[in-house]
């Protein structure tokens, strides 16, 4: 357990009190995690970095609203980061009318996102997208394929439950159940990493 003065929660409390050095320390600790998430959601380096900066800025502005009973600080940051990255993903999709499969990497027949992929813009982007897809599949490897699909669409694609149901042609209840089973599988190893919360 981290000591009180530099725990994530203490840093956020100091940020809420106007301590910008605490923001710096929190950034040092979590920038890579946040960037990793943004990268897997967005792919493009510039977009991902912009999302990281927006994430920490929002954390600074909203530090007073952090509620430890709703999850760890890292969870709060991830939630912000994912939200900011998905905003960019949607904006990009609107701009380019980019099909979802161009944003969420397909998992190359390993049980990932179903359906056809849009042609990648160039071979390098295609290679990167494939690599991201493999990494995502590996991160979710403990999940059965049908659960992984729901998590990929929801978490990396930012789809709502009804959009997932439409896309997978599954009943909404089945989508919900698969999401629950998936998260219950994912939660087990996390318990050791939670900090601060009782």
């Amino acid at each position, binding site marked *: 357990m981290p000591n009180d003065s530099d725990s994530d929660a203490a840093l956020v409390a100091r940020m809420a009190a106007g301590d910008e050095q605490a923001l710096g320390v929190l950034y040092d600790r979590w920038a890579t*995690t946040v960037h990793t998430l943004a990268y*897997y959601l967005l792919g493009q380096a510039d977009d*991902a970095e912009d999302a990281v900066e927006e994430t920490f*800025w929002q954390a600074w502005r909203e530090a007073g609203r952090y509620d430890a*009973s709703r999850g760890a600080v890292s969870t709060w940051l991830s939630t912000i980061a*994912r939200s900011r990255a998905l905003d960019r993903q949607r904006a990009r999709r609107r701009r380019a009318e980019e099909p979802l499969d161009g944003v969420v990497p397909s998992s190359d027949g390993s049980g990932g996102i179903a359906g056809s992929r849009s042609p990648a813009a160039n071979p390098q982007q295609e290679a990167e997208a494939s690599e991201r897809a493999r990494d995502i599949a590996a991160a979710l490897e403990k999940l059965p394929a049908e659960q992984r699909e729901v998590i990929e669409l929801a978490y990396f694609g930012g789809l709502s*439950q009804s959009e997932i149901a439409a896309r997978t042609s599954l009943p909404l209840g089945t989508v919900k159940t698969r999401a*629950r089973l998936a998260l219950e599988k994912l939660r087990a190893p996390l318990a050791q990493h939670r900090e601060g919360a009782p």
Partner: protein
Amino acid sequence: MSESSGHDAVRDLLAMDALDALSPADRAALDRHLTTCDECKRELAALRDATASIAAALPPRPMAPERQQGMRARLVARAIEDRAGITPIRGGSSSPSSPTSPPQSAASATQSARPTFARWLAAAALLLAIGAIAYDFSLRGTIQRLSVARAELRDSTSALERRLADQQAILDGLTGPGVRVIDASVASARQPYARMFWDQLTNRWTFVAHNLPATAPGHTYQLWLVTRDQKKVSAGTFTPSAGGFALVRATYPLSPDSLAAIAVTNEPAGGSAQPTTTPFLVGAAAKTD
């Protein structure tokens, strides 16, 4: 889904909410249930942590070191600006005022004086400002900074003058959606004036005064909180700096509507249990609603 739904009925909603994928209708149903069910709230927190763990399971993709450091510097610099460079003052709804133009604010402050405290107000040389300040983190940061700065500079009068002027500039700019400051002064530039900031969530009081005359030997100024039932609570004694500055901080719980005024009296060194002289500064508190 109704609020009478038990844990089993909302279990699937919890997972979807952790993924931010709930429909608005389901979201509303879940929110209703969560207001009454701590068990589900804990479960949701655990599922949110599980969701966040997906990011941790991905191979790390750090930014280039120089770009990461550049972003850090930008964020910290923006935070400093955000904390200190607050937008121009916004007065209370009844008496907007600007600390940078005291002559204009004199009239509005006079209008805000409450006749029910005529006894105190008649004795006053002038009105003080009282800001009833709702919770605002930028204010808390500023107050914290003032406190730190004051401790650092206790031994250096000239540095204190400089830094307090700087801090005053920060205080002058204090504003925001939750901040209400009623300012008052008189036209003459060298007249005393003061401002009280009351953080009603933390019960911290910060009193800043300018152009105060020096106290006579063996005497001190004493700051009082005057409640609506005429109780006078000491908020501490102080002596102004050579330049007439004073900054007093106190912590005292008071319900938002029970403050009538603040006052400053001249007291024997060490202070008094109750005021023994007529206050020479008084500020009436406007109703906080």
